[in-house]
């Protein structure tokens, strides 16, 4: 036990002194991930804000043919910009992105309207332009509303209650808690956390086997009166310590970064108070020994630092795969899923972020299964370390 502590302290001291290791261990989690995250969320929020607050800018060709429509649109807050364009010119302008969309009122519009026939309107739009999605949606809704209004008026004129053309009245009841709407974006956040936790221990895991072997320091170490299990446990614990530090720093960095992002605009309130940060750390920390053991096992198969690095970069994707699937499917927590390491941590952390709370049973299942998997892999790492081939 004492020897494990000696190895642990030495690994911590040595790696903290190596600026390269410290930089690569904490750069991703503390700077890169929160920055990327804050930038993308800010962009998305800005767009949402623009769609909500700014008037709809609508270039209209042939405005003179539909004065009533235009005054309706103006009443609804649209900023009408009369332009002189034919259909082809309008298509060009939208395709190049000069206009997000163009409404074209054909000459026969008024005539058809007066005759009571469906009056044609052309809306030139580009669905591949994600920036224009908000404006397009708003323009369509306004035109629909105008159309319904006209229909209602026509029915009234004929003495018919306009409700006959409204057989259904659908009320959507939105159950999303304010932060629940941001599930996709916050799902990304747990992905970043698990990633930076693993990256935090990346270099130590490599150093314990491939690194020591390459520098020629493994053989004298193995000729000391210390069991190999003690050596590898001390090293894995040091890896765990770096991973814990990286995870905690990342969470703190996220909490700080997100306080600058106008999340409310997206209808999100990321619940990032101190207790929540600590709770997320708590549900994620059982993943640390598993990650450390996994990386150590993989690194002990490799012969050189470089080889270990390229293998481990692939292995880093393994715990992230279930998260990706869960985010795409909008998976909800249930007891069976809690048995899957990394997925269970993602689901629990996401629930905490949404402010939904988590069930104690789920936390327990997640921690027990993940820690068990970690213990099994650690046993495998010890077994591998006992092989002669560890010397390469």
């Amino acid at each position: 036990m004492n020897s494990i502590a000696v190895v642990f302290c030495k690994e911590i001291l040595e790696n903290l002194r190596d600026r390269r290791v410290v930089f690569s261990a904490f750069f991703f989690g503390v700077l890169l991930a929160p920055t990327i995250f804050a930038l993308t969320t800010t962009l998305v929020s800005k767009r949402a804000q623009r769609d909500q607050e700014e008037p709809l800018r609508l270039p209209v060709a042939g405005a003179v043919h539909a004065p009533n429509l235009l005054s309706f649109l103006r009443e609804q807050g649209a900023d009408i910009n009369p332009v002189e364009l034919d259909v082809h010119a309008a298509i060009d302008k939208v395709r190049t992105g000069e206009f997000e969309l163009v409404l074209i009122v054909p000459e026969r519009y008024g005539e058809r309207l007066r005759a009571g026939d469906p009056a044609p309107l052309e809306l030139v739009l580009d669905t591949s332009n994600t920036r224009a999605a908000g404006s397009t949606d708003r323009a369509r809704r306004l035109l629909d509303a105008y159309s319904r209004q006209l229909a209602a008026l026509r029915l009234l004129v004929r003495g018919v209650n306009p409700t006959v053309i409204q057989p259904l009245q659908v009320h959507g009841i939105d159950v999303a808690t304010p932060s629940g709407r941001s599930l996709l974006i916050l799902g990304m956040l747990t992905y970043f956390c698990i990633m930076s936790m693993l990256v935090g221990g990346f270099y130590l895991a490599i150093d314990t086997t491939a690194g020591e072997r390459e520098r020629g320091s493994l053989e004298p170490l193995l000729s000391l009166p210390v069991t190999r299990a003690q050596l590898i446990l001390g090293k894995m614990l040091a890896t765990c310590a770096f991973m814990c530090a990286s995870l905690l720093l990342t969470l703190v960095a996220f909490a700080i970064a997100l306080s600058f992002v106008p999340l409310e605009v997206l209808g999100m309130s990321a619940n990032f108070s101190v207790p929540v940060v600590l709770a997320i750390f708590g549900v994620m920390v059982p993943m640390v020994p598993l990650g450390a053991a996994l990386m150590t096992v993989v690194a002990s198969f490799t012969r050189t630092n470089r080889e270990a690095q390229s293998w481990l970069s692939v292995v880093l994707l393994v715990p992230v795969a279930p998260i990706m699937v869960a985010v795409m499917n909008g998976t909800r927590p249930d007891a069976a899923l809690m048995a899957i390491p990394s997925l269970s941590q993602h689901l629990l952390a996401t629930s905490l972020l949404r402010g939904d709370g988590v069930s104690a049973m789920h936390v327990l299942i997640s921690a027990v299964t993940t820690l068990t998997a970690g213990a099994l892999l650690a046993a495998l790492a010890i077994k591998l370390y006992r092989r002669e081939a560890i010397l390469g």
Partner: protein
Amino acid sequence: MISISHLSRRFGAVQALHDVSFTAADGRITGLLGHNGAGKSTTLRILSTVLRPDTGQASVDGYDCATQSLQVRRSLGVLPHASGLYAQLTGRENIEYYARLRGLRGPGMKQACDALIERLGIAGIAQRRARGYSQGEKLKVALARALIHRPRTVILDEPTNGLDVNAVRMLRELIRELKAGGCCVLFSSHVMQEVAALCDDIVIIAQGQVVAQGTPQQILDALGTTDLEEAFVRAAATPESAA
């Protein structure tokens, strides 16, 4: 005291050791001489319990290397082929790390470190990180690390490789001191002159077999020459006619 009997070890298709037997006595310096790839390092690795033999036995101070490996490692001091220092630790920290792993603690450990640092003349560099060390400085720190627990039996794997004359002299002096203190010293080399200058007993190994052993004089007599260099070349060339 090192005793090896009928040791064999195979790596895949290569028979690295074949029926190797010799002893290295306390209070004597034994040289393990052979070309590169002759089986010197394999022998030393079996002694330091890092490798296991296929057949045969090796023991250090009466402990069997295969079954009592922890006791063997406790009594053995090993200077490996590469110094294997940790670049980010100072010389003293490198030495103290091994001292702690050997169970030394507190003032006793400090004293042991101070004594060796003093003896090896590395007080000036012991506070510096190991990454800037010269070959000679690395060797001295690695030596201090290997001797920190005052081992009865010391194994040195090609210790003079890449050293300048001063460092080689210092090393020889230290080895003689260990001998005077009653230690059993086994060191491997591929340089005949070096072994001749230092050793009481010589074991010549070629293609995994012992081809000659004894005092330098006995080896000269057995091979019918007065030149040790010539004796080594002759012995190494004829593993079949092993003495």
